[in-house]
């Protein structure tokens, strides 16, 4: 990581999906090292991740990551941002571990031979050189998450977006991955519905129905969030359809 990152700047951004206003006039400047985006399912968290990542464009407003527009300038976006999606099986594109790791590097301009060599180096450094030629499907679920994280790290982004990184994992795997994340030098933006995952963040944003309803240190935001979730959970009604 050569240059310092100027952070993620979102100005008056709105996103409409299928006619529905999913994100409404967001105004954010994210520079902290550990940022959490907390919200219920359907609050717009994943759309916000896609917006920051440049996978979708805002219908109004602007998004800038380290000064560039991630939607139009894909190369700059890839240098600035890495994304760890929720489901490894929807993320892994190649049959073997080494090919999966080499992919991003080859896309950044290396030859396949160079990329594979780097992949082997990385595996060696993690004590996993024997993984190189293994079929991806022979890895356990936790190992697949790990592989996806390694693939993202190989591209040396300045910020990593994590979508529900610990969802559905058993406790030891959660502990291992959380430890690994904590040690990363990159800025991390974690999107989740679970307050426990963002306890150690510098800044937590509570997203509800496409709007930021709270923004501050976890000590302030989390108790309010947990209380509200308990209140909603105490009611029986959930009959409204989204459409």
């Amino acid at each position, binding site marked *: 990581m050569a240059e310092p990152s100027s952070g993620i700047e979102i100005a008056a951004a709105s996103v409409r999906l299928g006619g529905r206003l999913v994100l409404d006039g967001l105004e954010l400047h994210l520079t902290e090292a550990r940022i959490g985006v907390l919200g219920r399912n359907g609050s717009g968290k994943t759309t916000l991740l*896609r917006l920051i*990542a440049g*996978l979708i464009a805002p219908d109004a407003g602007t998004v800038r990551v380290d000064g560039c527009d991630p939607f139009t300038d*894909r*190369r700059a976006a*890839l240098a600035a*941002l*890495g*994304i760890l*999606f929720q*489901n490894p*099986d*929807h*993320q*892994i*594109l*190649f*049959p073997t571990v080494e090919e999966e790791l080499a*992919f*991003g590097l080859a*896309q950044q301009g290396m030859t396949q031979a160079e990329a594979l060599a780097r992949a082997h180096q990385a595996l060696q450094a993690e004590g996993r050189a024997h993984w190189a030629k293994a079929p991806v*499907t022979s890895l356990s679920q936790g190992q697949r998450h790990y592989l996806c994280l390694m*693939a*993202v790290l190989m*591209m040396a982004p300045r910020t990593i977006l994590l979508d529900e990184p610990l969802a559905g994992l058993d406790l030891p795997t959660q502990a291992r991955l959380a430890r690994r994340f904590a040690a990363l030098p990159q800025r991390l933006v974690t999107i989740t519905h679970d307050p426990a995952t963002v306890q150690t963040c510098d800044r937590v944003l509570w997203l509800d129905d496409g709007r930021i309803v709270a923004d501050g240190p976890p000590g302030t935001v989390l108790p309010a969030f947990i209380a509200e979730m308990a209140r909603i959970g105490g009611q029986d009604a959930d009959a409204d359809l989204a459409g």
Partner: protein
Amino acid sequence: MLTLTSPVETWAHGLPAGAKLAALAIATTSLFLLDAPLTLAAALGATVLLYLTGGARFALAGLRLLRPLWPFVVIVGLWHLWTRDLSGGAVILMRMVAAVGLANFVTMTTRLSDMLAVIERLARPLSRFGVAPRRLAIAFALVIRFIPVMLDRLDEIGASWRARSPHRPRWRVLVPATLAALDDADRTAEALRARGGAG
């Protein structure tokens, strides 16, 4: 899932699907037995009138459905201009437009569920070969259920590609997509068996 049935109700919407399809079969066969330009022009005219009985909006929608034919119109037109066989070209084109137009009329005036019911009825003799109507109905439902699911998944896989490459996704994305289809098939089979099986 959006179908090609027209939301504009016409007199034909109420007719039984089987009858419309039978009439279509007869009409299409007749079209292919004719070869006089004037007769085919009359048939084409009759088709246009048929559409107009559904109103202007309906007729315009019908016109839009014919759009995929334009490359053939161009090819046949150019071919027959080149061979100076204009009437031959006109015969081919009029027959094509009339046949497709009549078929589209049936599609636009018949609900999906009615069409599927006709197909199930036609497949009944095949139940000896394991194509029981109930299994066919379940199969139809599964396909319709899973198309949006698989679209979303291909979208996610595409996002995963674009997260590591500045180019548009390449053929590689079909690999996880196909594996996911196989996994879904296994899981759905279990779910079916748990709820009584496919009969």
